[in-house]
């Protein structure tokens, strides 16, 4: 028999314990608890979905779609993962669905952008944009699933096991997506190692050498 959410106890740290308490209250439709949970998750979901979708105008709607599911399904949380992992997993599925609706299939998007991925065009791009925006453009060169792995690893600090739960895929798929993302972003990595926009030209020159490509 499935455990009720009210029987669950968190052993995954103070933050998860607090999230679980709020979720237990949301399960009985406590709107005060829901607003607190919303406030907690709004920034991280906004950031994650902004990175994942690259469609700022859609992010708020998808954040709300996600938290609407949390409101509706809180009583079905099983405690197999952290609350934040569960919520981010819902956000991932909602984000993918929203992109799907737009017929913006992630791989197609990545491929079309990859066509302009030559050194001269990249150089022009960087001279027009700041480094920050260039990272953003660099992330456009990888697929939505690869971006998701990058964001969840480097910004959200999830383990690869947690990412596999969020993205509903095996851990090896997570590692493969990270591997491909790193390979595509290889040109970006040496540049970021220097962290200095003035030397962009030199670094790009350097990054065009095969040895700089990881694996």
């Amino acid at each position, binding site marked *: 028999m499935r455990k009720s959410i*009210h029987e669950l106890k968190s052993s995954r740290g103070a933050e998860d314990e607090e999230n679980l308490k709020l979720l237990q209250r949301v399960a009985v439709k406590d709107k005060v608890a829901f607003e607190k949970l919303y406030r907690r998750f709004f920034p991280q979901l906004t950031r994650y979905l902004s990175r994942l979708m690259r469609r*700022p105008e859609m992010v708020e709607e998808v954040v709300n779609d996600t938290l609407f599911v949390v409101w509706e399904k809180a009583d079905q949380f099983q405690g197999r993962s952290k609350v934040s992992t569960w919520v981010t997993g819902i956000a991932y599925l909602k984000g993918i669905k929203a992109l799907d609706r737009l017929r913006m299939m992630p791989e197609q998007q990545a491929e079309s952008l990859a066509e302009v991925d030559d050194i001269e065009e990249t150089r022009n791009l960087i001279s027009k944009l700041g480094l920050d925006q260039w990272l953003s453009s660099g992330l456009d060169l990888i697929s939505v699933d690869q971006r998701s792995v990058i964001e969840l690893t480097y910004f959200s*600090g999830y383990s690869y096991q947690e990412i596999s739960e969020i993205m509903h895929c095996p851990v090896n798929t997570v590692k493969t997506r990270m591997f491909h993302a790193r390979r595509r972003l290889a040109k*970006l990595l040496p540049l970021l190692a220097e962290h200095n926009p003035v030397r962009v030209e030199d670094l790009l020159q350097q990054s065009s050498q095969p040895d700089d490509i990881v694996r």
Partner: protein
Amino acid sequence: MGKKAGHEAILELLPWFINETLGEKERDLVLGHLRDCQECRLERDRLQNFEHFVRDSDVAIPDHRFAYTKLQARIETAEQNRASTEGLALPVQSTNHRGSNFFPVVGIAASIALVLAFVGLVVPSGNAPVTNPEFTTLTTGPVSIEGTAQRVALTFQQPIQAATMRKALIETHSNIVSGPDADGTYLVEVQVPFNTSVEEYLRSIREIEGVQYARLSE
């Protein structure tokens, strides 16, 4: 793990070595390998810089309140539709609680009038008379009870389904203040009607399905 296979596997693990989420065994493997492998050390440094950059890069986060208001409206509509579909009373009306016979609940119009009359009043807990408590769920509206606010520690039977617990909270017109604690007890604020003693009131709460125990909070 062969030397080459080990090297490939370590390269693969580096992102999670950097974000410090590897298990102890994998972390030790990576550390051991990094001592001997220049290529992996360089890659670690690059990824570390990349991580800093990803962390530092800005994504504009708007104020949550505007978005929350929209979601709140959506939820209220969904709840009202559900109540209509299931043939239940509408949210505000549902606070009359069919089957709940220990509260002198007044009509909706009177509730609204009282709420309006008491808008702006701070309602302290303790013995102050309270006439406009609002049960803080999105699916019930304000309900008027002439009584005193009391904080009660409410323990539910285990296991309990969310629906049963919710029903109990609605029947008691409880606002959750905090909880659950380690024993699954919630601190709730209730209104004890003027014509009911606290003991009598607590006894009636204990009779509600799903409630294991109710006592005044210390």
